[in-house]
């Protein structure tokens, strides 16, 4: 029995044999003759196009657009054109194709535009399909009802797979925001990404718990029994919570509770029914800032924020300004070599130190505010003066835009209550239009326990009486002064803490979209 642990990218449980999604391309036999190499490449491109045309016939909607784009690229002589000179210089067909596609991919990767960068997945997909055709490989159709296992799974592999007998995906790479992860969530296919330590064996029996990200290979009877119990409990929870998803959020006595969602990627809203929630309690803008990529410009940020506001209509959307530092470094922005990054230059401390970066974001936010009900939230506030400074910058951004004749609006400015100083003395922060309790950091800072150290994780309890006392104080302060107080940490997504929070008087919860049903169900029982 072996265990792997990864991140759950799409929730669910599945048990079945592993099917390794091979990285093809290895076994192409060169002819040594340029004319034959060129012909081999032409044939491979042609076969790859035919495969995609077959696939196109069986998909629709967004998936069909992805495949149509790949076909159009393959049908364009320009894609393969750079290969002819490379082959003429003596390189084999596969090397020529790799070089030509490599420089295309490089060009897409270097773009400052996220839509463009996202096409890299498609180019990688095209590249490996042609390489496999070149090696004479038939499309390896993974059997239905298996766990697809590999470094990563491509969109076309996902779309061409037969999911009629369920299945799951476990990859060593990947990301929860990848195209495939989104497809998996919308199809309800369990998926675990970044699994480690990596083991890859065809046919081995696997238990995939894509709720916690735990994967067991060759399980013994006890592990199987425990898994089955968890899986059926999960299925039962899903059925019940699904029934609650579109109901209003209210307690047994009919008292309404506001239920908001936490999101990162603006694309997430494509999969959330706006009628299932009361708006967005936390949009993490860090998603737009990727380590190693150029900083997103104003236009790019504006489009992302606007998308979410338009989706929400009149419902409130709270966007948190860039919260990096701590466990979320970005080269060039976050300081190097901090001895204790969680207590260092992070959140609003960092953005106030980098007005050049902050200004771009505040301008994009003020522009987006013209399209809906936006609130802006500052992370890691410790002193009232930080709100004053940020408010001044926001004011400047709004004035600049108005002077330029660009439509904008000044959104309300509130703060995260995550540094204990704010929770102990909320009355110092009168300038905040609202508070949102960040229970993860509030717990970490109050209990002096690291969020990411498994050896002390048992100490990390948001229901510790000291943390609860701070939360109570914030809720009370809000009620006495008519200031909205919500809670957007993991605690709000955990049904076992919901009862405590409701009894403390919390009126607004912000949860992971997948927890909407469970949360409503928990509230309805109180």
């Amino acid at each position, binding site marked *: 029995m072996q265990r792997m642990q990864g991140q759950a990218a799409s929730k669910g449980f599945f048990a079945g044999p592993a099917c390794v999604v091979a990285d093809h391309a290895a076994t192409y036999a060169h002819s040594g003759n340029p004319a034959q190499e060129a012909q081999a490449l032409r044939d491979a491109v042609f076969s790859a196009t035919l495969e995609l045309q077959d696939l196109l016939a069986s998909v629709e909607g967004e998936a069909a*657009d992805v495949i149509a784009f790949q076909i159009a690229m393959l049908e364009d002589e*320009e894609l393969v054109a750079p290969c002819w000179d490379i082959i003429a210089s003596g390189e084999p067909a596969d090397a020529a194709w790799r070089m030509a596609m490599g420089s295309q991919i490089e060009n897409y990767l270097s773009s400052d535009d996220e*839509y463009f960068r996202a*096409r890299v997945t*498609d180019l990688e997909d095209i590249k490996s399909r042609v390489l496999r055709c070149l090696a004479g490989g038939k499309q390896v159709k993974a059997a239905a009802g298996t766990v697809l296992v590999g470094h990563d799974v491509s969109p076309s592999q996902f779309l061409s797979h037969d999911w009629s007998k369920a299945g799951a995906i476990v990859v060593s790479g990947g990301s929860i925001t990848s195209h495939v992860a989104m497809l998996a969530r919308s199809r309800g296919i369990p998926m675990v990404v970044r699994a480690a330590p990596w083991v890859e064996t065809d046919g081995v029996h696997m238990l995939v718990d894509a709720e916690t990200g735990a994967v067991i290979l060759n399980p013994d009877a006890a592990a199987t029994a425990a898994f089955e119990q968890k899986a059926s409990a999960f299925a039962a929870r899903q059925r019940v919570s699904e029934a609650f998803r579109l109901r209003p959020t209210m307690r047994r006595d009919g008292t309404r509770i506001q239920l908001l969602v936490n999101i990162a990627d603006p694309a997430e809203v494509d999969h959330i029914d706006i009628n299932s929630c009361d708006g967005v309690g936390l949009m993490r803008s860090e998603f737009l800032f990727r380590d190693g990529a150029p900083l997103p410009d104003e236009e790019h940020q504006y*489009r992302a924020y606007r998308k979410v506001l338009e989706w929400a209509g009149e419902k409130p959307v709270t966007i948190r300004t860039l919260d990096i530092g701590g466990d979320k470094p970005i080269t060039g922005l976050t300081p190097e070599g901090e001895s204790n990054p969680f207590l260092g230059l992070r959140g609003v401390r960092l953005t106030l130190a980098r007005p050049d970066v902050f200004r771009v974001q505040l301008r994009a936010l003020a522009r987006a505010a013209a399209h809906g009900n936006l609130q802006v939230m500052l992370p890691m506030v410790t002193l009232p003066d930080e709100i004053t400074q940020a408010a001044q910058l926001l004011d400047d951004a709004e004035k600049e835009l108005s002077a330029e004749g660009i439509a904008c609006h000044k959104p309300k400015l509130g703060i995260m209550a995550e540094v204990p100083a704010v929770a102990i003395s909320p009355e110092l922060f009168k300038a905040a239009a609202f508070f949102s309790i960040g229970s993860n950091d509030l717990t970490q800072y109050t209990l002096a326990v690291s969020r990411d150290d498994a050896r002390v994780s048992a100490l990390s309890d948001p229901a510790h009486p000291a943390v609860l006392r701070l939360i109570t104080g914030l809720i009370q302060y809000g009620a006495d002064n008519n200031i909205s107080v919500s809670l957007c940490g993991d605690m709000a997504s955990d049904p076992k803490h919901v009862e405590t929070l409701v009894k403390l008087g919390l009126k607004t919860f912000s949860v992971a979209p997948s927890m909407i049903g469970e949360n409503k169900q928990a509230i309805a029982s109180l």
Partner: protein
Amino acid sequence: MSDATQDSVVITHDVGLHARPSVALTKLAKTFPSKIEIAATADGPWIDAKSIVKVMAMKAKQHSTLHIRAAGDGAAQAVAAIKQLVIDDFAGA
């Protein structure tokens, strides 16, 4: 180009000239026998509107101007049709 036609249009599509719009544009261009080129500025560089590889590589964004020119058979119709496609927001692409 003799008997060439040229025009320009502003891209309104949300994400600019990306995957789906580029597929639509190159498909339409290929239905005309004329040589059709597009550019981001009136001075070029002009690129082949029938090549999706090149059209994508322009990375034309929303609110940018797309210059279109064509020469040969059906040049005027080709320019008009492509302009209309952009105005129609790539038919919802």
